[in-house]
């Protein structure tokens, strides 16, 4: 009996393993990957992707909107972790994502047919958006997304610390760097502009504040290698060398905790953190654009943006476009709530921004005004590889003391090669 029993057990085990593997394989083929929402409306099902917003309440707000949408079942996928990579994989595989937000629309993906053309939605209403808002969604003359929220990034400071050190609010970039040096002392640094010492944000901001910007108007030439930009980066290098930058903080500049704790007098921050900074610091908070660099410079506010897009391989492209339009073009109340109900962002539609009362006074209004006047975004032709080349050069200037002029020239050459390859 024993051998028979043993053989049976082995078969039973193999059968069980086979059945288990089949069940797993079949369940893996399903589309249930943890999303929320869906209201049982209509026959069309849409999957809408969001990255994980830091502010409480955003997920609930978008899920509620999805439930109340009448023309399709909308399933909200709240994506934790590396959103860009996960989204890219889904777009390449052509399944599982219909409508999605994106802060990095790129020419290659548009030309390879991963995005649906949204020109038919946006062309009739594009005069309702600012040029800065339309730039990130426009490639080859077509519009590939609906601007959702605009995030101005600029400099915030503690007036009490400046006053205590006898430092005036800087009006030029040189004065700004000098102020950072003078504000450094004890456990306090002059600047917290990222754990890379400002290589990432200031390298781009200096190029804009010095005048040449990053690319020319028709996006065919890289333009940042000028004597004024060299001068600005040299001033940054000097401030870094003098120990004016706080680096090694637990989180990066986007989290205001380090600034709120008084570890730096001036920080680089997005407008999204305004409520948290106001709550912690009260009236001891001021804001300014990056001051002009050199004689022909201008102030600069860097603007990033999230945009709503539709996948070219969506299960129902027209239904997905209709849903994106209903939420991010037509529903002004939802857009206002989304912009200022949780963190602070600016609605990219001019009329909606003007109707958002929370943005009409105090620091918020100051930021909106500065953004309207000095807002800059590089646009989709400024590819990530170009950003990496410029940031790498600035990092070497700061951490290794590399020669500013030669590093900048080399970075421009690398960026130009990348830009040329995008055109081919």
């Amino acid at each position, binding site marked *: 009996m024993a051998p028979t029993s043993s053989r049976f057990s082995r078969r039973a085990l193999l059968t069980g393993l086979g059945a288990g*593997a089949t069940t797993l394989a079949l369940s893996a083929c399903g589309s249930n990957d943890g999303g929320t929402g869906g209201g049982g409306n209509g026959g069309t099902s849409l999957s809408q992707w969001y990255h994980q917003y830091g502010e409480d309440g955003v997920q609930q707000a978008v899920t509620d909107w999805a439930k109340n949408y009448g023309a399709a079942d909308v399933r909200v996928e709240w994506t934790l972790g590396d959103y860009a990579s996960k989204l*890219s994989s889904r777009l390449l595989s052509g399944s599982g994502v219909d409508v999605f937000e994106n802060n990095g629309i790129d020419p*290659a993906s548009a030309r390879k047919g991963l995005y649906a053309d949204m020109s038919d939605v946006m062309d009739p209403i594009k005069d309702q958006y600012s040029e800065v808002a339309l730039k990130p969604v426009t490639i080859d003359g077509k519009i590939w997304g609906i601007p959702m929220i605009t995030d101005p990034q600029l400099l915030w400071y503690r007036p009490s610390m400046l006053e205590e050190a006898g430092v005036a609010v800087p009006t030029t970039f040189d004065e700004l760097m000098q102020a950072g040096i003078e504000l450094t002392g004890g*456990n306090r640094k002059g600047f917290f502009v990222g754990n890379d010492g400002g290589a990432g944000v200031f390298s781009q901001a200096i190029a804009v504040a010095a005048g040449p910007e990053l690319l020319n108007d028709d996006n065919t030439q890289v333009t940042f290698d000028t004597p004024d930009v060299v001068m600005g980066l040299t001033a940054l290098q000097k401030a870094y060398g003098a120990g004016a930058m706080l*680096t*090694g903080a*637990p989180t990066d500049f986007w989290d205001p905790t380090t600034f709120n704790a008084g570890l730096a007098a001036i920080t680089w921050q997005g407008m999204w953190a305004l409520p948290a900074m106001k709550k912690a610091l009260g009236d001891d908070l001021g804001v300014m654009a990056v001051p002009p660099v050199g004689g022909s410079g201008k102030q600069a506010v860097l603007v990033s943006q999230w945009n709503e897009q539709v996948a070219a391989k969506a299960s129902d492209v027209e239904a997905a476009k209709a849903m994106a339009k209903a939420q991010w073009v037509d529903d002004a109340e939802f857009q206002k709530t989304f912009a200022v109900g949780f963190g602070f962002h600016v609605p990219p539609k001019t009329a909606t921004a003007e109707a958002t009362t929370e943005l009409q006074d105090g620091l918020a209004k100051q930021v909106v005004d500065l953004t309207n006047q000095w807002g800059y975004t590089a646009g989709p032709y400024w590819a*990530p590889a170009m950003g990496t080349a410029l940031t790498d050069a600035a*990092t070497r200037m700061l951490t290794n003391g590399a020669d500013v002029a030669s590093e900048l020239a080399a970075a421009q050459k690398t960026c130009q090669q990348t830009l040329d390859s995008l055109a081919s």
Partner: protein
Amino acid sequence: MSSSTASAPGRGGTSPAPSSTPASATAPRAATVKGSRLAFWVFVTPFLVGLVLFTVVPIVWSTGLSFFEARGTLTPTRFVGLGNYTHFLTDDAFTNSLGTFFVYALFIVPVTMAVSLGLAVLVNGLPRFQAFYRSALFLPVACSYVVGSLVWKLALFSGLPSGVANSALGVFGIPPVSWLGSSPYWWIVLISVRLWLQVGFYVVLFLAGLQRIPPVLYEAAMLDGISAGFRRFRYITWPQLRPTVAAVLLLLLVAAFQAFDEFLNLVPTNPSTRPPLVYLYNVALGAQRDFGLGSAGALILTTIMVVVALLQTRFFGFSAAEDRNGTSRRRRGGVQA
């Protein structure tokens, strides 16, 4: 099957007598082979399918992609020949990343080797509590590299005055150091976190090697007047550990080449500490999503790693000298016979 096998004459007996194996033993043997074949395929097929689907196909696909311009697509149409490969010859970022690997390997390989061997010798010599120390040393191996990196970044080597390392320096009146923001301090963080995470694994390998050394060799050495200390280690322990040392060296080199997690979490944007895999991650899977360039780079790195491994095995590998000199092995075998 087992009952037939059990009844076969000669099994379990003290006299193997091959010539006495009866012809009747052939039938169950054939049945066993037939059954084994089925079992072989039942067990191997799932893994074979997985291997083909998730290893062979991606390698072949990746090789194909490396000859195309494949930004944002896995089904490219524009053939660029060796263009992606020649790009790396002129890309300073890539050659710098290889330099980073070289510097990193130069430190992490010998340091890990020395520390793990030293600890293994110490633990092996303990009269009691060997299991405890072995477990304690092995415990960090179970920790994720990401978690280890975050502990190093947020607690031990934070750039704030409140970080553990800076607090310790503060006791001696030394101002806070930006550990991850200035050279060469970032190497202290990068080396120490990997040392903590991996040294236990190599201690266990060395312990296994040490415990395979016949005690009779130490007894003979004692008779010759070498009782303990460095001479005993040099003339008995070290030569006997040679296969283990070769294996550890190869594993450490491969692990150093594959360094990724701690670099991405501790120094994500610093070009001076960007190893090859982080560079390739940025090119292929990060925001750039250039799968053609990424595939070409991956194949170049694979080639480099294979060449290094072959050279290492050839010159420092498992009994390399003896393998090359078959006559000495045969002569030794003859003497033993």
